[in-house]
């Protein structure tokens, strides 16, 4: 292992230790304060022991417990964290893949034809900045299904980065490479698949990665809104139960799954990168 690697790992562990230490310190302070509550406050139940920000050790204990049987299902209000994450991932993938299938061909079209580009540009510019959650009421009314509505919201938020990056990637294909295809007498389909697509793939993957990131951000919020299942609903439900340990634990899990999804795409994109 190189010297730099050792330094990196040491620093990383140090940060982890600091988080634990400060976390523990900050939260035990909170508990001590509660013991010094006035009689009035105790009477009013303001110092309820279960409603407090949990320390790292508490969260860790819960994590071990939850992750040892993540997929249990005891009815609508008691599902394992794995089950909830599974629902969320499923929705994200459904909306996301739909966006991929639609955005890449349209992006290609926009990138290849200035007419399409200019014609669609104003619509894209207006639709793009709309918060995906703003679509939710309309989606619920039209689709009349909360699960499909959150899939739609994911779809609508992932489509723009993929669309624009595909178009941009296609537009910035080097003229020299297109000249190569012309002098080789390639037809439009051959040019699209053998020259433009491989040339644009790195840029397309940038879009795919951004969209996946946004989708994972949005699904949590969407599920808080529509309820039922999913990690977003789970967080909100635990908040209603005032179980902050579970809230912190699920926040952590949201981060880890998000990182996993991002890693999945960035690793895949490595196969399509090229260096000039």
């Amino acid at each position, binding site marked *: 292992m190189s010297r730099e690697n050792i330094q990196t790992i040491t620093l990383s562990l140090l940060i982890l230790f600091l988080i634990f230490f400060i976390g523990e310190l900050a939260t035990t302070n909170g508990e001590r304060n509660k013991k010094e509550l006035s009689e009035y406050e105790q009477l009013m139940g303001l110092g309820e022991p279960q409603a407090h920000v949990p320390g790292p050790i508490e969260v860790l204990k819960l994590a071990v417990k939850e992750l040892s049987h993540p997929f249990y299902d005891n009815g609508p209000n008691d599902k394992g964290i794995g089950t909830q994450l599974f629902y969320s991932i499923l929705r994200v993938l459904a909306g996301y893949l739909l966006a991929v299938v639609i955005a890449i061909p349209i992006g290609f079209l926009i990138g290849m034809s200035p007419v399409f580009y200019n014609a669609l540009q104003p619509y894209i510019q207006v639709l793009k900045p709309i918060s995906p959650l703003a679509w939710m009421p309309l989606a619920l009314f039209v689709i009349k299904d909360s699960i499909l509505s959150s899939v739609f919201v994911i779809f609508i938020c992932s489509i723009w980065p993929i669309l624009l990056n595909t178009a941009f990637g296609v537009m910035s294909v080097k003229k020299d*490479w297109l*000249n*190569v295809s*012309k*002098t*080789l007498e390639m037809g439009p389909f051959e040019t699209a698949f053998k020259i433009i697509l491989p040339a644009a793939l790195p840029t397309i993957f940038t879009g795919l990665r951004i969209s996946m990131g946004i989708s994972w951000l949005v699904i949590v919020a969407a599920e808080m809104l529509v309820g039922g299942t999913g990690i977003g609903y789970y967080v909100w439900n635990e908040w209603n139960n005032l179980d902050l340990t579970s809230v912190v634990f699920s926040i952590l899990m949201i981060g880890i799954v998000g990182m996993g999804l991002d890693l999945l795409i960035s690793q895949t994109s490595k196969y399509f990168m*090229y260096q000039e």
Partner: protein
Amino acid sequence: MKKFLEVNQLAKKYPIKGEKNTFLSVFENINFSMQKGEFVCIVGHSGCGKSTILNNLAGLDSPSSGNIIMDNKNVKKPSLERGVIFQNHSLLPWLSVLKNIKMAIACKFKELSTKEIEKRALHFLEMVELQDAVKKLPHELSGGMKQRVGIARAFALAPELLLMDEPFGALDALTRGKIQDKLLEICEKTNQTIFMITHDIDEAILLSDRILLMSNGPQARIAESVHVNIPKPRNRAEIVNHPNYYLIRNHLVDFLINKSSEIAKGIQNNTIDDSEMPKNVSFTNTADLENRKAM
């Protein structure tokens, strides 16, 4: 002898931005022809329109007026019969050296099997001595190696006419010399018809049968066509001893330094008649000198 390639009254104009109905005329009245197997270089100052002429020959660009006829057919769009070696090699960076060439071969020789395509690709890579780099990606190659891959790709397609736009412009003198030798050797074997742009007059004399000289732009012309009367095969060490070498070289230098701008002025003032252009220039009197030496 039947002309293989004929360029008639070629002209290129660009509209000037912001001014209606005024045009920048890059070149006009360009006339020249080429025979099968001929190696022709074109030399001229930067911006006179050499690349534009080459792109017109390739069919990647179209002239404002005039026409180009190759093998009795009008040149209108790019074709596999006209190979191009671009200045910046233009290999596809996501394909290995071998795959770059295989893809090109597959486009031209559709009847070949995968095995035959690979065999042909390897043959031409060996020709440019790159058999050890077949698996490499273009960015892993030096500039000279990339240019050699470009040459291999172009020759593997066996085009009727090969067009080269300053193929060695970006290389250092040593590498450039080596690749020129390689090109000489390959041309000797294949008798490839080549049209090449260069800024290097020694390169032009070493490689070509004829050198076209362009006057300065705008309204550039091909003013002269200089025959390189030095027998082939040539090699760089001996060619300088040929009595025609310095005659030709001095003529080219004089043209580029003095005449190219004088002609440009003359054309702009209408004091020069371009109907006889390009003027054929040939240093034939030394040919018997050569014979006498041989005796």
